[in-house]
Every structure is written in structure tokens, then in C-alpha cells.
């Protein structure tokens, strides 16, 4: 009874929300009745409506999942909602929804599913009223457009939407749900970068995690700390550390009863990934590695025993590291050594593990060359590269990036490493790399970029502002 009441109220609410855009619906209805195809505008409006309803459902679910408040009768609440809804003006069609989510108590899952089903039926009924002839396309559209549009909407990453309070709130909610501490932002922000996170460096993220941590695996906690303090830095190093940590997680994992390993393990990994993202934003290589691991996990057949599945996963990860990182480095090095001739003066910037590997290999193959290491404040990563090369016995020079136009006339080649390779062919790398390339072009010096394929990424970007990571301003 209560359910029936609820569903009817929900249907009423939907139509009230629908009333807000009733005018447009009438147009659409008219067009459908006349047998014409819906125009693009009308189709878009339909899709927007669908999305709105989906968002309502998601918000409901999000609120109810972490409620500790005891269940008052939901009926009364629903009644007051329906009383409010008609008085709301059409342009504020959203407010009944927000009022609903702030006041509403927890609903059980069964109730929610019932609601959802009822809503869908109500929608279909409403559609049916408008005309049977045009029913096929709308119902087809009602299923297809959300899937079509969702990738476009989801693709806008949250780390470039910091100036949008809705996106920030969404992220905070998600982290709260996964029980991961949120990183605090710095008080005074640089206006040029107001769309990016500017984190306060006062307290590390892990201070708010209790010991022993039950939600996050201790290996992951350690890894996150290593990332945020800069102990593990560099694209390859971070990916390898991440994959090793995942191996440990998989080893310690035990499938809970009534759950499948392939689905549950992926869900277990999600909060870890959010936590690592909070410690330090994920790199493109890490993103690709995570995608691979998730794919492997979900491809595990359901009849597989837990021990076998774990062994398979561990060996998959080992293969990935071996193929995509270690062997790739060897292959790239073999190609690159052909480009190094005797008497070359090679310029490198910062510390790229791949470029160091290439130079060490070339030195082992008895090529005669000298290296100029260019470094920049404040991280001064070039000193690490300098130490490694000098230890090998290569003849090195060291300058800061402001002296690069002085030293470039002596250089014959420039070797650069990459953090990611974007879909439009642009290279994303440590700040200052573009400067080196620019000055090298002015002096007609060839620039070679070395990058493994697992760092390829589908994003596109044209300047350094739209998406970036801000470092510590106090060094």
C-alpha cells in the first residue's frame, strides 16, 4: 500500500517536473502526432529530461547509502514533497529534487528499486500517450542517448573543474562514500590557475587515516605517501610501484561470500585509486596500467578458483611490466643508439629513466659522446641524472635552464623523455621541456623524444594551462 502510494506520488512528481517543461513536451507531442520526426532540439530536450531523471535517481542513491538516521515514515515526506512541487515555478524544476535529497531519510534498496521501476513505467506510459507511431524511436532513444552522451560528459576530468563548486562537491561526496580523506585546498589561490587544485601542504593526507587502516590496504597507504612526498617520482617508477602494490593487494585479497572475484576485486580497487589520486594525480601511464588490470580482472571466468585466478592475475601484471616497460626500454634503446654517433654532444633535460638508460647503453656499446645535463629549479631533478651518468663514467656538463641559449650552439642532439603522448601528437613532459625544444629549434638542433607506448593517451591539449598539476610553491 505504502509502495503504491509512493509510486503514484513519484509519478505525480515526475509529471510535475515534466509540467515545468510541459510546453516543450506539447510541441514534441504535436510533432509526433503529425508523424514528423522529432527535430534536433526536441530530441535534445528529451535526452536532457532523461538525464535529469537519472541524476535524481543517482542522488537519491548517494544520500541513502551512508545514512545513520532511523527511518521515519517516508510517506509523510513524500506527501510534503508533492505539496511543494506544484507551487514551484517551471524554471526551478530542480529545487523539488534538491529539497528531496536534503530532507529524505534512508530508503531500503528494495524500495528504491521499486521506485525506479515505477518511474520507468510511468515514463513509458507518458510516452505511450503521445502517440504509438512514434513510440519506437523515443523508447529507442531513451535507452540509447544516455549511453551515447555519457562518455562525453564523463570525460571532462574533475581535476580541471575546481572552479565549479558542483564538481567539487561531487568529488567530496564520492570520496566520503569511499571513506577517503579529502585534501584541503590552500587559502590564497593564484587566479591564473583557479581551475586547478591548489592543495595546502601543511598536513599530509594520511594524518586523517586511522591505524590500522581498514578501508585502504597498508601497501597502498605507503605508496600514496611515497607519491605525495616525491620519494617515488617519474612516470615509469610510479607505474611500476603501482603495479607491485596491486600485486600485493591481489595476494592479500579474499573473495567475500556471495560475491564474484571478477566484480568485487574491481570495486575494491576503486577507493585505492581515489586515494592515490588524492595523494598525487595519476599519470597517463598509471591510468593505462589501471585500465589493463581492471580489464584482466573482469575477464576472469566465473568458474575459476580463487587461487588460480590470483596466480593468473599476478602473472598478467608481471607480463605487463616486462613487456611494456622493461622490454620496451630495450627496444627503444636499440633504435636510439643508431642515432648517436661518435663525437656527439647530447643535451638532456631533467631525469628521465628512459633517456638515462639509452645513454648508459650507448656508453656500454663504446660510443664516444659527451652529455650536457640541463636542470631547473626548484626540483633540481637533473642532479640525479648527473650522478647516474657520472657514475657510469660519461663525460658530463651541468647547467641551469637559463643558460641553455649559451650552451646550445655546442650541442648536436637533444634527447627528451615524455610523461605522456597526446592524441594530437603533442608531448606532455616536465615543465621546461617545451622551452628546451623551442631554443633548440632556434639553433637548428634536432630534438628526439623517447616514449614507451603505454604512455599514449587519448586526451588532447594545446597549452600548459588547461590541465596541469601544481607543485609545492614553498621550495
Amino acid at each position, binding site marked *: 500500500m505504502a509502495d503504491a502510494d509512493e509510486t503514484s506520488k513519484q509519478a505525480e512528481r515526475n509529471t510535475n517536473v515534466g509540467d515545468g517543461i510541459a510546453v516543450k513536451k506539447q510541441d514534441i507531442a504535436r510533432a509526433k502526432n503529425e508523424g514528423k520526426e522529432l527535430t534536433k532540439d526536441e530530441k535534445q530536450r528529451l535526452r536532457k529530461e532523461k538525464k535529469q531523471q537519472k541524476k535524481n535517481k543517482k542522488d537519491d542513491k548517494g544520500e541513502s547509502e551512508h545514512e545513520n538516521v532511523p527511518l521515519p515514515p517516508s510517506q509523510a515526506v513524500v506527501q510534503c514533497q508533492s505539496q511543494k512541487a506544484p507551487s514551484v515555478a517551471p524554471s526551478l524544476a530542480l529545487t523539488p529534487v534538491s529539497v528531496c535529497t536534503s530532507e529524505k531519510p534512508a530508503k531500503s534498496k528494495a524500495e528504491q528499486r521499486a521506485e525506479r521501476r515505477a518511474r520507468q513505467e510511468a515514463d513509458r506510459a507518458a510516452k505511450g500517450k503521445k502517440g504509438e507511431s512514434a513510440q519506437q524511436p523515443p523508447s529507442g532513444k531513451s535507452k540509447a542517448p544516455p549511453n551515447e552522451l555519457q562518455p562525453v560528459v564523463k570525460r571532462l576530468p574533475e581535476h580541471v573543474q575546481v572552479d565549479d563548486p558542483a564538481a567539487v562537491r561531487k568529488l567530496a561526496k564520492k570520496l566520503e562514500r569511499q571513506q577517503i580523506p579529502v585534501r584541503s585546498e590552500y587559502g590564497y589561490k*593564484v*587566479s*591564473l590557475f583557479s581551475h586547478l587544485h591548489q592543495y595546502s601542504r601543511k598536513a599530509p593526507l594520511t594524518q586523517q587515516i586511522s591505524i590500522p587502516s581498514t578501508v585502504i590496504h597498508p601497501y597502498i597507504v605507503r605508496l600514496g605517501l611515497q607519491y605525495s612526498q616525491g620519494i617515488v617520482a617519474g612516470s615509469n617508477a610510479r607505474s611500476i610501484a603501482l603495479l607491485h602494490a596491486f600485486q600485493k593487494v591481489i595476494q592479500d585479497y579474499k573473495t567475500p561470500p556471495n560475491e564474484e572475484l571478477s566484480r568485487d576485486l574491481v570495486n575494491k580497487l576503486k577507493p585505492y585509486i581515489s586515494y592515490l589520486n588524492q595523494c598525487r594525480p595519476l599519470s597517463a601511464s598509471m591510468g593505462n596500467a589501471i585500465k589493463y588490470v581492471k580489464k584482466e580482472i573482469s575477464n576472469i571466468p566465473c568458474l575459476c578458483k580463487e587461487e588460480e585466478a590470483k596466480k593468473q592475475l599476478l602473472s598478467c601484471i608481471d607480463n605487463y611490466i616486462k613487456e611494456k616497460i622493461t622490454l620496451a626500454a630495450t627496444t627503444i634503446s636499440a633504435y636510439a643508439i643508431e642515432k648517436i654517433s661518435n663525437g656527439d654532444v647530447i643535451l638532456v633535460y631533467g631525469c628521465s629513466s628512459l633517456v638515462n638508460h639509452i645513454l648508459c647503453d650507448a656508453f656500454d656499446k663504446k660510443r664516444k659522446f659527451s652529455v650536457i645535463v640541463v636542470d*631547473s*629549479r*626548484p626540483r633540481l631533478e637533473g*642532479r640525479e641524472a*648527473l*650522478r647516474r651518468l*657520472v657514475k657510469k663514467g660519461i*663525460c*658530463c*656538463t*651541468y*647547467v*641551469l*635552464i*637559463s*643558460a*641553455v*641559449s*649559451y*650552451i646550445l650552439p655546442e650541442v648536436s642532439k637533444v634527447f627528451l623523455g615524455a610523461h605522456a603522448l597526446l592524441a594530437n601528437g603533442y608531448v606532455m613532459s*616536465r*615543465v*621546461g621541456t*617545451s*622551452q628546451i625544444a*623551442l*631554443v633548440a629549434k*632556434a639553433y637548428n638542433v634536432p630534438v628526439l623524444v623517447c616514449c614507451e607506448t603505454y604512455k599514449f593517451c587519448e586526451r588532447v591539449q594545446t*597549452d*600548459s*594551462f588547461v590541465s596541469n598539476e601544481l607543485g609545492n610553491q614553498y621550495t
Partner: protein
Amino acid sequence: MVFLILYSTLAMIDVHSFKRTMPVTDKEVALSERIEAFLAELKRGGSGAGTLRGSGETARETTALLRRITGQAQWSSAGDLMEIIRKEGRRMMATQPSETTVGNMVRRVLKIIREEYARLRGSSEVTDQQESLHQLLTSGGLSEENFGQHFKDLRANVIEAINELLTELEATTDHIAMQALEHIHSNEVIMTIGRSRTVEAFLKDAALKRKFHVIVAECAPFCQGHEMATSLSEAGIETTVIADAAIFAVMSRVNKVIIGTQTVLANGGLRAVNGTHTLALAARHHSTPLIVCAPMFKLSPQFHNEEDTFHKFVSPHEVLPFTEGEILSKVNVYCPVFDYVPPELITLFISNIGGNAPSYTYRLMSELYHPEDHEL
């Protein structure tokens, strides 16, 4: 007369050598002491680190010293005076070759002497400079002036002219800053590098009337950009400091680049603090105008391909400190101070006499210096 000339040359030789047998007069002693003190300061102040004297101060002190030499040294004709000043000038330039303002002031004073001499002699000489090729051909080679004639008023006139030069020097920064509002509009993002007193005054003057944002590149390893940024923000300008590596990354948001320089070369190029060439290339790539605020006393008749005098290096301790230990002995470390910026990367020069294109530099030089003084 002859005795006097001998006497004065003796005194000059005294000044030049450290083994002084007997100070001739108190004035001579005082003068020579002043010169030695100035040379010592020049040598010390050019180490790159520590308190860098602004070129304006150096120019003023050089001119004051030259005025003193004109007033107190023993000379009878313009030629003598010019010889004295050339000798002193060469000594001063040898002490600190990178400090070009010293040489520039010496050349200005030489030109003043020539002009005053010509005026006293007869005004026809004033216009008879190096203007036309025809005149050079018909007059039979270089002019055979020997400046031997003695004029009573020459000393006073020259000193007065040098005083005018000093007044001009004191007012250069203000004249440049007065032009600020013509070039900066509101809500602009301006980029600069390192520390330049001229640019500081320029931006502060504009900030009195307009609101804009300044990005300062810190210019490692001495990081003078930090001082510049604090000074600008004290004047109420919104300032951001960036590392040198981020110059190109940030350039897409910048509307104008305004820099100072150490020297303006004869072809319109610059000898500026290191990192400026990168800044200029990034500005050209993004088609951002590059404006150089340089007073006229920085204009030097040198060209940049004088290899041994162009670059100056300081201790690489700032680049790779001694704490790095073992690898230090196996590594070459460089710390150059200056960069060459070719004239095609520069949009505009703003000086105390107004704005100029880099291609106009040759003309300004011919007004300031006599061609025979280019090589002292």
C-alpha cells in the same frame, strides 16, 4: 710652456704607476686616489652576486669622476684632455669589461669635448660630422683635426656640458617611467625577468592609474626575480613568481613582455641577464610584443661577436654546490651571466628620449658618439 707640458705629463705618469716618488700637488693626489677608489669599486662590484650596483649609479659616478678629471687635471688643449680621458677610460674599461656604461660615458664626454671645441673654434665644424660619403671622399680621408688650439673657456664649457649630462642621467628613469601609461592598458598580464630598476619604476608608475597583473621569472641562480616581485607587490601590483622552466608554459597567457637590459648593442641587439633569449623566443612564438626599457647611457658601440668580452662567468657554486661532493671533480659546470638577444626578436625600445625600433639604433649611436671614439 714646454716646461708646463713636461710637468703635466710627469704628473700623469705618476698617477699611472704605483711607485710614486713624490706626490706633486694635493689635488693630484686626491684625484688619483679617487680614481683608484673608483676602479677598486668597479672590480669588486662586478662579481655578479651580492649587492649589484645599478648601471645608473655607475654611469653617474663615472661622469662625476670625468668631470673632476676635467676640472683638476693639468691640460692645455682639447687634444690633451681627450688623451687624458681616453687613458683613464681604457683603464676603467679594462677593470670591468662587462660594465659597458663606463665606456659609454667616456665616449659621451669625448664627444662633448669635440663639440665644445668645435663651437669655440667656429660653428662650421659642428655640422661637419661624419654625415655624407661625399664629404669623406672630397675632404681626403679622415679629418686631420689635432685639437691643439688652446681656448680659455674650454674648461668651463666642458664642465658645464658634463653637468647637463649628469642632470640628464639623473632624470632618465623618470622619463622612461612617464611613458608607462602609453604602453600598458588595464587588465593586462605583463611578464618580466630578473630585476631591473628601470622596469620597476615603469610598472610602478603605470600601477598608479591602471590595474594589471605581473608575472616575474625568477632568473636562477641568483633569483633576483624574488626581490623584484616583493618590491612590485609592495606597490600594490598583483604579482606572480614563476620558475625559469615555466616561461614558455605561461607565455600563452601573457599580453606583453617588458624587460630591462644590461647593454644595448650597436646592431640593436641586447646583452641581458641569462634567460632573456629564451623569454624572447617564447614571446616571438606566441607573437607577444617584447618591449625593452633601456636608458640611452646603456647604448654601446660594441657588437656581439667579440667573443672574449661578450660572455661573463661567475662562480658555479650557485649552480652545483660543493655539497655535491664526489661528482664535482668530474663535471664541467657553467654559470654565464649574460645572454645575447638578436634585434629581430625585439619589438620596441623605450628610452628617455622616447620609443624607437631596434633598426633605428645606428642613428641614435651617431648622435651620441663620434665614430673615432668607438675604439678607445
